[in-house]
C-alpha cells in the first residue's frame, strides 16, 4: 500500500512532468488554461518577441469579461483603451489559434462561470488563469489557481509551470446550517476565522457535511473565495452532486468514456489516514448570515451584530487595520450594521452570479419594490445564465421590483468598466473583495450573499430576508 494522500496531493502527483530535487519546484502540467483580455496581452507580446508559439491552443480558451460594458454589448465599446484591450485579445486569439468567446456570444461570460458551464472544468484537472479567483474550479475537485502574466506566457509557451508543492489545509464544517445561512456566509465566516493570510502557501480542502450537502453553485462560491483567505487554491472532493451537474455538458465525456471518467473521478478523495499540515474545524451552527464591515474580506460580522472597534482586537496589527478600515468606511464602532443605509446593491461577479444565486435573490425581491434612492444592478455571470434566467422569468421579477437587469461580465466587482461607485458611496455587493476603492475610487463595499443583497435593496439598509416579513 502506498502512503495515504490528500486529494490535492493526488492531483498534484498526477501532473508532475519532472520532479524538482533539493527544494527545486516540480514542473507541473496544466490541463486547461483560461485567458481573458486584461492579463494576457503582455504575455502574447512576450511570445512574439521571442518567436514562440502557443504549445496547446486546444487546451486554451479565452473569454472577454473583466473590461466589458454590461449594456449595449452589440455596440462598439465607447472607452477607447477598453476597446483596444478587447480588440487585442481577439487579434491574439486569432493569430495563435485560440477559441475566444467574444462579448455577446452565447458562451461568453465571466471566465469562472463559463468554464464549468461548458464542461471544461472536470475533476482531477490542473487549471490556471491569470485571475486570482481561479480556485472557483476547485469545486469540481480540480487544482485551480491564479497566476500572473509572466506565468500566463509560460503556460502558453510550454503548457506547464514550475511550481513548489504547496502545503495542505483542511477546513471542516460539520453539522447543519441554520435556515437563511448560505454558502457565501460559510466562506465569509471561514475567512473571518483564518484571516487574509491564513491560507498562504496552502491548498485548502473543504470537508464535512456542509460542503457535501452543498450544490455545485454553492461549492463554487466557497472555493472562489479561497484566495481571500490567502490560499493558493481550494477544492472539494467530487461526488454524485458533481457528476450530476456535469453530465451532458459540452466537453464532458459521454458513453463509455463517461463511465471510465467517473470511475477515475471516484478515486479523487483524501485517503483514510492522510494528514493535513493544518486543520480547522468549524461548527455549522456557529455560522450566521455575514456582512463585511471593513476593507479586507476577513473583516466580517454577523448581520445581527454591532460594528466592532479597534478595542475588540487583541492583536495590535488587527486593531490598527480595524481603525484604518473604520475611518475609510465612515463608521463609528458599536453601531448595528442593520441601521446602515446603502446607495447601491450589486448582484453579480464570479462569486455569486450563477443561476442559483439569481433564483435566490429573485425569490426575495419577488412582489416587492427597491427602496427609494437605491441603485441596483443584477449582472448575470454569462450569456447562458442570462438566457436561463430570462427563460425562468427572473429578469421580469427583478425589473418589476426596480432592479437594473444587465448583460454579463465582471462589472462592478472590480469596476474596470463603467459600473462604478462614486466616492463615499456605500454598496451591498455579492462580489468577493471589499478593498479600498475596489468598486470605484472612494467607494465603500460590503460583501454579502445574494439573499442579503436582495433584502438590503428592498429595505434600503442592511437586512436579512426574514427582516422583510
Amino acid at each position, binding site marked *: 500500500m502506498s502512503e495515504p494522500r490528500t486529494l490535492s496531493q493526488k492531483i498534484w502527483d498526477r501532473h508532475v512532468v519532472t520532479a524538482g530535487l533539493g527544494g527545486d519546484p516540480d514542473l507541473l502540467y496544466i490541463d486547461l488554461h483560461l485567458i481573458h483580455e486584461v492579463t494576457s496581452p503582455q504575455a502574447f507580446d512576450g511570445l512574439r518577441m521571442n518567436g514562440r508559439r502557443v504549445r496547446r491552443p486546444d487546451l486554451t480558451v479565452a473569454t472577454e469579461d473583466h473590461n466589458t460594458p454590461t449594456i449595449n454589448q452589440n455596440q462598439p465599446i465607447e472607452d477607447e483603451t477598453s476597446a483596444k484591450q478587447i480588440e487585442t485579445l481577439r487579434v491574439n486569439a486569432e493569430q495563435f489559434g485560440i477559441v475566444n468567446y467574444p462579448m455577446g456570444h452565447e458562451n461568453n461570460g465571466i471566465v469562472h462561470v463559463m468554464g464549468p458551464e461548458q464542461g471544461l472544468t472536470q475533476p482531477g484537472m490542473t487549471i490556471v488563469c491569470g485571475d486570482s479567483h481561479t480556485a472557483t474550479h476547485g469545486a469540481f475537485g480540480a487544482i485551480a489557481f491564479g497566476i500572473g502574466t509572466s506565468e500566463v506566457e509560460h503556460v502558453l509557451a510550454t503548457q506547464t509551470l514550475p511550481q513548489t508543492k504547496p502545503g495542505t489545509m483542511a477546513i471542516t464544517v460539520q453539522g447543519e446550517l441554520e435556515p437563511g445561512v448560505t454558502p457565501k456566509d460559510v466562506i465569509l465566516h471561514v475567512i473571518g476565522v483564518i484571516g487574509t493570510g491564513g491560507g498562504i502557501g496552502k491548498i485548502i480542502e473543504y470537508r464535512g457535511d456542509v460542503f457535501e450537502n452543498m450544490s455545485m453553485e454553492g461549492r463554487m462560491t466557497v472555493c472562489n473565495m479561497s*484566495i481571500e483567505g490567502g490560499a493558493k487554491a481550494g477544492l472539494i472532493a467530487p461526488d454524485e452532486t458533481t457528476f450530476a451537474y456535469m453530465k451532458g455538458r459540452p466537453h464532458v465525456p459521454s458513453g463509455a468514456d463517461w463511465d471510465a471518467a467517473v470511475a477515475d473521478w471516484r478515486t479523487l478523495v483524501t485517503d483514510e489516514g492522510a494528514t493535513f499540515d493544518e486543520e480547522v474545524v468549524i461548527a455549522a451552527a456557529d455560522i450566521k448570515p455575514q456582512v463585511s464591515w471593513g476593507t479586507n474580506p476577513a473583516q466580517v460580522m454577523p448581520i445581527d451584530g454591532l460594528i466592532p472597534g479597534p478595542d475588540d482586537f487583541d492583536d495590535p496589527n488587527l486593531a490598527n487595520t480595524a481603525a484604518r478600515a473604520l475611518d475609510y468606511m465612515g463608521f463609528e464602532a458599536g453601531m448595528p450594521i442593520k441601521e446602515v443605509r446603502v446607495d447601491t446593491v450589486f448582484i453579480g461577479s464570479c462569486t455569486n452570479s450563477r443561476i442559483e444565486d439569481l433564483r435566490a435573490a429573485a425569490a426575495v425581491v419577488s412582489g416587492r419594490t427597491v427602496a427609494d434612492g437605491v441603485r441596483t444592478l443584477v449582472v448575470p455571470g454569462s450569456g447562458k445564465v442570462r438566457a436561463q434566467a430570462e427563460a425562468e422569468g427572473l429578469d421580469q421579477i427583478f425589473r418589476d421590483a426596480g432592479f437594473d437587469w444587465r448583460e454579463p461580465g465582471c462589472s462592478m466587482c472590480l469596476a474596470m468598466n463603467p459600473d462604478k461607485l462614486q466616492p463615499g458611496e456605500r454598496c451591498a455587493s455579492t462580489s468577493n473583495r471589499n478593498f479600498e476603492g475596489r468598486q470605484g475610487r472612494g467607494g465603500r463595499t460590503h460583501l454579502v450573499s445574494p439573499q442579503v443583497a436582495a433584502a438590503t435593496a428592498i429595505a434600503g439598509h442592511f437586512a436579512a430576508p426574514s427582516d422583510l416579513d
Partner: protein
Amino acid sequence: MKAVRIVSGTAVPLDRTDVDTDQIIPSDWLKRVERTGFEKGLFSEWRDDREFVLNQEQYSGANILIGGLNFGTGSSREHAVWAIQQYGFDAVISPRFADIFRNNCTKNGLVPVTVSAEFNAQLMAAVQADPTLELTIDVERLTVEAPAIGLETTFPLDPAVQERFLEGLDDIGLTLRHESDIDEFEAARKPWMPAQA
C-alpha cells in the same frame, strides 16, 4: 529578466498590513496592453494624500519598500509588480507576502524579502527614525542588513528562484529544455480530457 545580486540603498516604510494589489495599482490602470508606464499608477489613490509616505521628501530616491504583514494580497495582476519596479524599487520587504504577488516578483527580478515580524518592525522603526539608513540585500548570501545599526538577518528563496535571480535566466527557456518530458507526459494523458477541436 536581468540578473540581480545586490540591492542596496535607502527604504520607504509603508507601515500598513494587508496592502492589496488593488491599492498598489487600481484597476483603471489594467486597461493598458503595454508592460511599461505603470509608475504613475503606483498607490495612486493613497498618493492623493500629501502626507502619504511616498510623498515625503525624506524618502525620495529610495529603492527598497518595507511593507507590513500580508503584502500583495488579492488580485493576481502582475501590473502591481511592474508598477513597484517602474517607480524605482528593486526589493520589497515584508513578514508575509501573498503567493501570487511573490511569484510575480520572482518573474520580474523584484526581490521579495521575507523576514520575521520582529525584524520587520525593527527595520520599519529604524527607517522611520533615520530615512537615510542604508540597507543591503544580498541575493547570493540571502541576507538583508542595515550595517550602521548592526541589524542583519537572512531570508528564504527557493534555490531555483535564487539561481534565476543571480543568473538573470529566462524561465520559459529553462522549461523548454524539458520539452521531451512534456511530450512524453502528454502522450499518456487520458483521451477524454477536454480539448478544443
